[in-house]
């Protein structure tokens, strides 16, 4: 009985993130369209797109290998496992100890590793350009993320995300310089990792500007559906991560009853809506930058993260 009670939030979380991820993407798209005075696609369009893709046959390039066919499932699995371990509505995740924040970052790294390889599999120039730029961006985004993890871990005294969220929820964290720097850095990393404007444009098909879309150009049918779903999950993951660390209000604590959990779900919905609107406003108010300005953008995130970690090493009061 205890196991079932412990398992319930974890299982709920797993399926909640899977169900909500397309909705979040759809909401961002609709909001962006409204900001541009367009009507935009219906809110549920991403679900329809995914279902349609799943039902279609997959067209494989003649020299696509087994890696090309396995990669979408591996990418999806890695992202899903990572997303299931980031607290959304409650901190009482049964398996939160199996992978801490460093491991979650690395899991996303594994997913990216296979995505970049899949981009190179068919041997087209677009796949190569996408993979090459993706790994270049990752060489900045991953260390920046790890510096943020360091800062959070030193503040909360743990790298376990549930523990960090629980600590942030408790009184006495207060405003800290290092937390502010980490928040800015994390937002910059999240924008880059999710291939949003100004790093990449999720809506583009202008070949020379794309990174993520170039890598997945050869994918179709169910494989494309898996990759799109992973991208949506990743966006949800980063929103949940920022929310659970920097806006932990409403999170149900470990071992709470059903009522706090329902409150947590409500609060989570609100956070998602706020985040989606902020993201849409940000994206419509900024232009995409050249590829070689991305290192400057992410280098700033890395420096902010390092500065935050250094401050924490210097003194506990920052």
């Amino acid at each position: 009985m205890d196991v079932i009670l412990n398992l319930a939030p974890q299982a709920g979380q797993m399926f909640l993130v899977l169900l909500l991820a397309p909705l979040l993407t759809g909401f961002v798209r609709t909001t962006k369209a409204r900001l541009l005075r367009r009507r935009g696609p219906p809110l549920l369009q991403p679900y329809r797109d995914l279902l349609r893709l799943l039902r279609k046959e997959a067209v494989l390039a003649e020299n696509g290998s087994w890696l090309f066919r396995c990669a979408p499932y591996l990418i999806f699995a890695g992202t899903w496992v990572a997303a299931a371990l980031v607290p959304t509505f409650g901190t009482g995740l049964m398996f939160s100890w199996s992978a801490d924040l460093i491991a979650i970052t690395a899991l996303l790294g594994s997913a990216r590793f296979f995505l970049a390889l899949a981009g190179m599999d068919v041997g087209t120039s677009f796949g190569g350009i996408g993979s090459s730029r993706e790994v270049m961006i990752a060489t900045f985004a991953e260390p920046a993320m790890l510096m943020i993890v360091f800062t959070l871990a030193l503040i909360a005294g743990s790298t376990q995300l549930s523990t960090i969220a629980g600590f942030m929820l408790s009184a006495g964290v207060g405003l800290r310089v290092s937390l502010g720097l980490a928040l800015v850095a994390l937002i910059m990393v999240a924008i880059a990792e999710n291939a949003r404007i100004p790093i990449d444009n999720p809506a583009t098909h202008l070949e020379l500007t794309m990174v993520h879309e170039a890598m997945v150009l050869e994918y179709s049918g169910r494989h494309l559906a898996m990759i799109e779903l992973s991208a949506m999950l990743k966006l949800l993951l980063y929103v949940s991560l920022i929310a659970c660390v920097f806006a932990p209000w409403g999170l149900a604590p470990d071992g709470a009853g059903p009522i706090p959990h329902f409150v947590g779900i409500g609060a989570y919905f609100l956070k998602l809506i706020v985040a989606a609107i902020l993201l849409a406003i940000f994206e419509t108010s900024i232009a995409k930058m050249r590829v070689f300005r991305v290192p400057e953008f992410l280098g700033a995130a890395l420096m902010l993260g390092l500065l935050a970690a250094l401050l924490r090493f210097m003194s506990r009061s920052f």
Partner: protein
Amino acid sequence: MMPPTITLPIILFSVCGFLGLVVMAVAFGSSRRATPMLYGGVSIVSLVALIASTIQLSAGGHVTPELTLPMGVPWIGVHFRLDALSSFFVAVIDLGAAVASLYAIGYGRHEHEPLRVLPFYPAFLAGMNLVVLAGDAFTFLVSWEFMSLSSWALVMAHHRDPGNIRAGYIYLLTASFGTLCLLLAFGLMAGPAGGYTFETIRTAHYSGGVAALVLALVLLGAGSKAGLVPLHVWLPLAHPAAPSHVSALMSGVMTKVAIYAFIRVVFDLLGEPSWWSSMVVLALGGVSAVLGVLYALIQQDLKRLLAYSTVENIGIIYIGLGLALAFRANGATAGAALALTAVLLHVLNHSLFKSLLFLGAGAVLTATGQRDMDRLGGLIHRMPITAFGFLVGSVAISALPPLNGFVSEWMTFQAILQSPNLPQWGLKFMIPAVGALLALSAALAAACFVRGFGITFLGRPRAPAAAQARETDRFSLGAMLLLALLCLLVGILPGFVIDALAPVTQPLVGGRMPLQADVPWLSIVPIAASRSSYNGLLVFLFIAASAWIAALAIHRFASHAVRRSAAWDCGYPDPSPLTQYSAGSFVQPIRRVYGTTLFQARERIEMPAPGDVGPARFHVDLRDLVWDWLYAPIARIVSFAADRLNHLQFLTIRRYLSLVFVALIVLLLVLAIWM
């Protein structure tokens, strides 16, 4: 189960077995049949030593077998000692040796001149084993030099290939320099009384100046063998020049013997470290980690890429060693044990995946005759099992879960997170900076191996040789799959290895990591469960289950239809494989971002004159600043001095006699003033 006291004789008998195989190789090496037999023999002998050392390690370090043989220098004798540290390194050496020899049963058939490899190969293994078994400075140094020279002979096996002579020459120079440094270090530690056994050295006390000098000498001596920047220049030349199973051993195992030497001297013999020494080690480690992987990223030669990646991993290991020193100097036992365990685990991990990658590169080399990645491609279709092995190695070395490379890097990160409690301000600045370098090197390593695997195995063949490649033989495949399996097992069940390492760290830093066998669900917990934990097994099972369920559900309920068609490529697929991304173009963004200052990377485009139908050309100029700033001036000074002293060879006998006379007078004067 054999009692631990006989494990040392068994390992020494194995060493004798290796030496016996040397004789056999000299006698019968020229016959075609001998190659597989000899490699099979080496494999079995290494397996025996591996089993003996594992038993010794699992005995928990309560008994330390020792043996003194009346050989060598009369008043010292030859001492052998098998404590927990030695048994761990014997296990690493002989595990690598057993697998590399298994691989060579098949791979060795392609050797054109087997007599240039066969006798030196078991000798090299014997040398490495003897270094870690040595119980006195004399035996240590003789074995060290034996190991260096036999590996030099293996580097020179293909001496007719362009560049290999130079590689061998530079290797010989750095190896002699390294041995010289170690010789001086042991001389300083033994002192004027000449206590050369490790027992005597361990009990002696050293003043701060002597200890600092010994540390610097050991950093130079062991660091040059391990490939620490800036002493790494020989490594990317020499390791790829050897036959691939030897490259695997040199990169995967011999660099670890150098790590052993560092641990033995600095942690065991030298006594309490001072905190600033950890600053030096941390800085060198951080620089090596990032520079090594950046060098690896710009290489076109697959084996040279792997060799530079060894420099990176040695950097990671030295970062861990620096952390362990910093914790130990401040009496933080738990942190020191964690950092040192992370080091030892990374030693094992690197020996597994680097051997795997070199064996894969060797399989590619025999199948295509190519090491240049720009002439490879598409091998995943022609060599699927090799590709799988290389993929596992690439994921592991990129520190990605759920494989083993991630576990040791994760533990190093956890050790870094323990360090804000250290009181020294220097360390407070240094450790987060080194942590950032470590994170950067991990991300760059992933980029490096996306490129290494992607250009070599994916895409379309860039040259006819790659299009006609054939899968390699069964022995080689077996060896690679075995290593891939070990990478996975250590990645998902690291707790067992960590517990086995406890007797190694206990005497060196006076503590151990918490017992992992008690942690539920086979997780690993570095300090306390509330701080951090990781469960590779569950992560692996979760990923496997979600991928499996997703694939199954989609194939069952949605669609499983597949149609093959031409590549889409935005509607304009080009049939020429030259339009693919190449090794150079893939790394262009990274080269531009990081290499503009570090390698002085300059891109030049030469356009033909208007009306000229000649091709446009694209040049990339790269400079190796370490070589330009450090080695080139030294080489210039040496040749300048040699030029100046040259005329001393052509004097008359009268002048020689007066020179001797003047020298005598000067020496006597010095003595007179000194006294």
